[in-house]
């Protein structure tokens, strides 16, 4: 008997609003949450814009002890996990059959940088002063603590792990979590991803490779996936958590099933740590494998949630991949990038995009690509510019592309699909 994976809960912390409802409203409105950086003084940086979360941990329900102990990205994940867990109403479950699988690309970088500044006297000492470090600094070294904190919240005693495969981590964490259920290692898995990368070192490292947009005078229109005038991605932050559950387990207890995680695959370009091949072969291959696993034909895809980062090379690469995957149907399938509205939150975005895909299935609405004013002749698909579109969806594909040459794909289907 094949074990299948249901989504029974969603939680989101994203720029433009905390909670799933605010998130869905924003990304179907076509409004953007990109703005000048306020989390630190960005004077002197090339890119001084980001999509920040207006996040108040006290208001979000975290205790003083949690706020003290947790780095910002762990706080996001905790709040998103609480929302998803409340919605799923799993109730009594065997804790040894409950797992956690969280993703993050840069983990505790924010705390690592803060404490670095304190222990090095603003970079003056190579041999840092350990006495000036926060007692929680050790948690920042390894994002293993991200999954552990979420596990403690839901009482998980099964497999608990963090996936840190860079910018595909958000897709990979959900895919890996789904496999824990398919393979019988767990019946319920709290899966998702979180990131809070808007700190000087991360902004500087993307400055150095000109990956981020320098449209500082017009932040609201800076994230322009598939637009001719795009100039890089806008850094974002946030978290999303999905409660994954073995389908029969969910049905037996009468849970509302939002979607199924039907397929997942990753492939690598073995080409370059940041460069992409022009043909999109590996992304198409990852998508094809994920569809095979889901027993879905490419013809059945109703919506593609693109990586759509808005870098010059990504959007071309991805368009080529979709042509390769969808063939003659490529022009008929809506493709959009919500990064145009909430930025690119590195390891978190894949899970946030899967939350968007699940909501798209539930509501029968495709979120748009904002800021797509002037089509790029090299990007010739239907990117759903500006305005959300109603469409009954049965199968949704979400793809991601990350440093290391990694390409990932996840297929979501309607709950009743067999």
């Amino acid at each position: 008997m094949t074990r299948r994976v249901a989504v029974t809960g969603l939680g989101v912390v994203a720029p433009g609003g905390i909670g799933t409802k605010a998130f869905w409203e924003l990304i179907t409105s076509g409004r953007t949450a990109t703005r000048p950086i306020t989390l630190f003084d960005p004077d002197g940086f090339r890119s001084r814009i980001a999509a920040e979360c207006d996040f108040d941990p006290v208001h979000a329900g975290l205790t003083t002890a949690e706020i003290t102990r947790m780095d910002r990205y762990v706080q996001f994940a905790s709040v998103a996990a609480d929302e998803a867990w409340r919605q799923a109403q799993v109730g009594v479950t065997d804790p040894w059959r409950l797992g956690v699988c969280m993703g993050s690309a840069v983990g505790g970088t924010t705390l690592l940088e803060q404490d670095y500044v304190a222990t090095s006297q603003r970079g003056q000492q190579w041999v840092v002063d350990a006495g000036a470090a926060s007692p929680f600094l050790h948690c920042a070294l390894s994002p293993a603590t991200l999954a552990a904190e979420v596990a403690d919240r839901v009482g998980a005693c099964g497999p608990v792990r963090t996936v840190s495969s860079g910018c595909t981590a958000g897709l990979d964490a959900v895919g890996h979590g789904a496999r824990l259920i398919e393979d019988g290692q767990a019946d319920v898995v709290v899966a998702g991803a979180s990131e809070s990368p808007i700190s000087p070192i991360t902004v500087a490292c993307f400055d150095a490779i000109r990956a981020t947009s320098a449209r500082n005078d017009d932040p609201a229109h800076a994230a322009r996936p598939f637009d001719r005038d795009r100039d890089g991605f806008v850094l974002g932050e946030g978290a999303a958590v999905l409660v994954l559950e073995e389908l029969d387990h969910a049905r037996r207890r009468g849970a509302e099933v939002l979607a199924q995680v039907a397929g997942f695959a990753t492939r690598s370009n073995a080409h370059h740590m940041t460069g992409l091949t022009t043909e999109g072969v590996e992304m198409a291959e990852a998508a094809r494998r994920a569809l095979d696993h889901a027993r879905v034909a490419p013809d059945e895809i109703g919506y593609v949630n693109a990586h759509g980062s808005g870098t010059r090379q990504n959007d071309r690469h991805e368009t080529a991949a979709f042509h390769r995957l969808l063939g003659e149907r490529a022009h008929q399938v809506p493709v959009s990038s919500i990064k145009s509205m909430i930025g690119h939150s590195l390891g978190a975005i894949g899970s946030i995009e899967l939350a968007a895909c699940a909501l798209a299935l539930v509501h029968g609405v495709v979120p748009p690509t904002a800021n797509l004013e002037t089509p790029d002749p090299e990007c010739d698909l239907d990117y759903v510019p500006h305005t959300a579109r109603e469409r009954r969806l049965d199968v949704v594909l979400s793809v991601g592309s990350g440093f290391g040459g990694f390409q990932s794909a996840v297929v979501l289907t309607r709950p009743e699909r067999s």
Partner: protein
Amino acid sequence: MSPARTGSAPVVTGVGVIAPNGLGVGEFWPAVRDGHLALAPIGRLEPNPYPVTVAGEVTGFEPAGWVEPRITVQTDRFTHFALAAADLALRDAALDPAAVEPFEFGVMTAGYSGGVEFGQREIERLWRHGPEHVGPYQSIAWFYAACSGQVSIGNGLRGPSGVLVADEAGGLDIFAAAGGELRRGVRAMLVGGAEAPFCPYAMCCQLGLGLLSTSGDPATAYQPFTKRAGGFAPAEGGAMLVVENAGAAHRRGATVQAVVAGHGATYTGRRRFDRSAQGLLRAAAGALAEAGLTPDDVDAVFLDAMADPLADAAEAEALRLLLGERASRVPVTAPKAGYGRSYSAAAVLDVATAVLALEHGLVPPTPGVRECRFDLDLVIGAARPVDLRTVLVLSRGVYGGNSALVLRHPESPISGGM
């Protein structure tokens, strides 16, 4: 359990090791077998104002002998270890990646601390000199996915990639994740992990764990399971193994070194070593069940060996619960007492050691340890000849993960399998 689980256990066909006690299995195995003590004052930390002074450092490793200069400048030391170990593993397996179908050979690594030394250099440039001084390689050198990415690119591996940051126990979980890919049709995976946590800032982060030995005497710094247990000596290094689909390995005439027969993982709370006895027990029982075996089949155990009094007691208790009256008769060992605990790489090195132990019919000793405070048959002094068919490897993370992996001699009848 998934129907694909039976009779298709992955097999180990190549081992590559970069460890404080040897580069390559040709050096590593004799050092482990003879209980060579490779702990020493940390040369990379001079001056060393920190309370931890003894560690397992990889000496005599020149990147130039292993890594192209073009890649050396864009990578941290932990990635140098991973690339070198991957190269050794491929040679040991006599497997040319070019001979494997595209998309069917991938790489997965476990991580814990990432490229901290590279990161500290760049973050120092940022805070000392300004954002424009951060180099282009910071974006690809520091993050946890650097090893999987560079190993994929360096060896032309276009199959699945993955990165788990799941504590020390992630070093075992990564074999289960890779097994999941092999079960789904991938032919071969490079699996492993690497750590290089000896720059000042990485040390500053680790100190907060409160689990590191502050003994200044290399001969007694890491004394697990003794009355003197007072923390572990940290270490650097890495290991990569070639794990193949059994059928594919047989078809190409590969020498099978061991069978990866079963895995289990649980979580029992951050710093709750008192609860880890149940966690380890359930992980081990799960791994044996997956292998189609019982605790009576276990011929030797490779211990986690945290060298914390509470953690050691919990591990001894787990063995008592698992093995019953056999607990005092089954040889158990902690070879890492001789070269230190390299976080996510520690468990991978234990898997490498277990594979070599199966091959040689020898249980290597726990170096530097002269007594055991528990009713266990801890192998001390000389290696013990044992007709090994089934070995159990245990690993536990400082943030609550407990994992177990069962390895079998290639000539054992296969009754189960991951």
